[in-house]
């Protein structure tokens, strides 16, 4: 379990609304893969906290309980690279797009 769950202030803006301020050159292909995406993947049983799902600043990773797997919304990715380091099982391969695809910051 996490050390403690921090309550969010009322009316806090969601990460989804923050991502709404951004633009991407959309790629038809994912640049993120789970090295093991099977039902035996470490995400399923071994990984208790699933830090990719709680820390990723673009909420790319979500735990889908009914299907018992991590869903990867690669099109949200803002290419910080934190997920590779966050995964305790080194199960996330995050490579960059070619062709100028991906996030396009205007301010940065």
């Amino acid at each position, binding site marked *: 379990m*996490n*050390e*403690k*769950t*921090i309550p*969010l*202030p009322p009316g*806090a*803006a969601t*990460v989804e609304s*923050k*991502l709404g*301020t*951004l633009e991407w*050159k959309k790629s038809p292909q994912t640049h993120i893969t789970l090295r093991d995406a099977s039902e035996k993947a470490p995400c399923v049983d071994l990984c208790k*906290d699933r*830090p990719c799902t*709680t*820390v*990723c*600043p*673009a*909420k790319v990773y979500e735990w889908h309980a009914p299907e018992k797997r991590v869903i990867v919304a690669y099109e949200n990715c*803002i*290419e*910080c*690279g*934190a997920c*590779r*380091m*966050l995964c305790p099982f*080194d199960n996330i391969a995050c490579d*960059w*797009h*070619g*062709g*100028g*695809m*991906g*996030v*396009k*910051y*205007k*301010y*940065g």
Partner: protein
Amino acid sequence: MSDSYDSIVVGAGPAGVSAAITMARAGLKVLVLERGEYPGAKNVQGAVLYSRMLHEIVPEFWKDPQAPVERPVVEQKMCVTTEDSWITVGYKSLKFLQDVPNCFTIIRVRFDQWYAKKAEEAGAELFAGVMVQDLVKKDGRVVGIKTSDGDELLASAVVAADGVNSIIAQKAGVRRELKPSEVALGAKEVIALSSSVIEDRFQLNPGEGSTMEMFGATSLGMLGYVFLYTNKESVSLGVGCKLSDYQKKGLRPSDHLEIVKKHPLIAKLISGGKTLEYSAHLIPEGGLPSMPPLVSDGLLIAGDAAQMTNPAYREGSNLAMTSGKLAGEAVVEAKRKGDFSKAGLASYGEKLQASYVMQDLAEVSGLEEAVEKSPGFLEFYPKLATQLAHLRFSADGRPKKTHLKEALALARQRGFLRIAKDLWPLRKAAL
């Protein structure tokens, strides 16, 4: 694009462009490759730009009518916070505006676009939207790069300036994957406010800027800080803490930002502002122990790719510029000698060693660890400091000598020897 160059620079950020300008001006055939759709597309910074290092490359850049600077900074404040109290220490000086102004706030993407043009004006070729996937090696030496489209381009020297997530450093086999404790994760919002509102709220003359860094409660017990910088018609509010701390807390930095926005110190300053853009980026904070070898046969590493940031002084882009410039000079010298081997490029490491870059990094080495080892910094000291200030500024009907007794009792909770031990490492960030 031709097939071979004196140098190929990977990444059109401050390090890469500084290297490219230096080499192109010396007459070298230089190619800069940037993976973003345009320079800056993938880059994030607070952002404070220290002038001196850029001034050495583009003299008096701030006088350029197109100069992408927001406000020259006249006042810098540090705030120690608890949930409902804060102590602010600020320094304001008109000297910051004289001669070479100390620093400017910038909008990083605009800056990168302007700076990349300077490299092109100097004669470098620059292509954006090109992803460098791998190095081309021959007999163990780096002789070029391979793009994600499979094209191979040759160069006598490759300058890896591809940022904190450097693919080149990993492909060269000189850097392993970073650990969550070696990087900070920063998240930021650029919040629109009119220039008159900014100048009123931050007590600034028209056009002048200020910076604030907040420590203590705003970091929620994590190692890091919150910053608020004034741009022309927006402010940049950001959080940055160790990735390992976010990992332990299971906290998303976007949520951290939301918590920070409600802090009474900050809420008032950003009130009524609309968020123009959200961003997040890693900051290499491993310091010297995490630094890869800077030179190998045909390869030099500069800027964030080589872990060159000094978080204790919120410096990074200036180190990147200096390292890029020195890397460029080393390639120019290697070309003159006709020797691009590790030995032929060695002057890069030597000049960097003699510069503020490596000396400052050596000086702050171990500072973060010392702070982490004394959890008092994150909670006890901010609380103690505000309690003492509260006593000093209160008339509560009690004789003042009871204030002194109370103050000593508060400090005794931690013990005077312990306090001295805690504070000693901070001398490294004092001047």
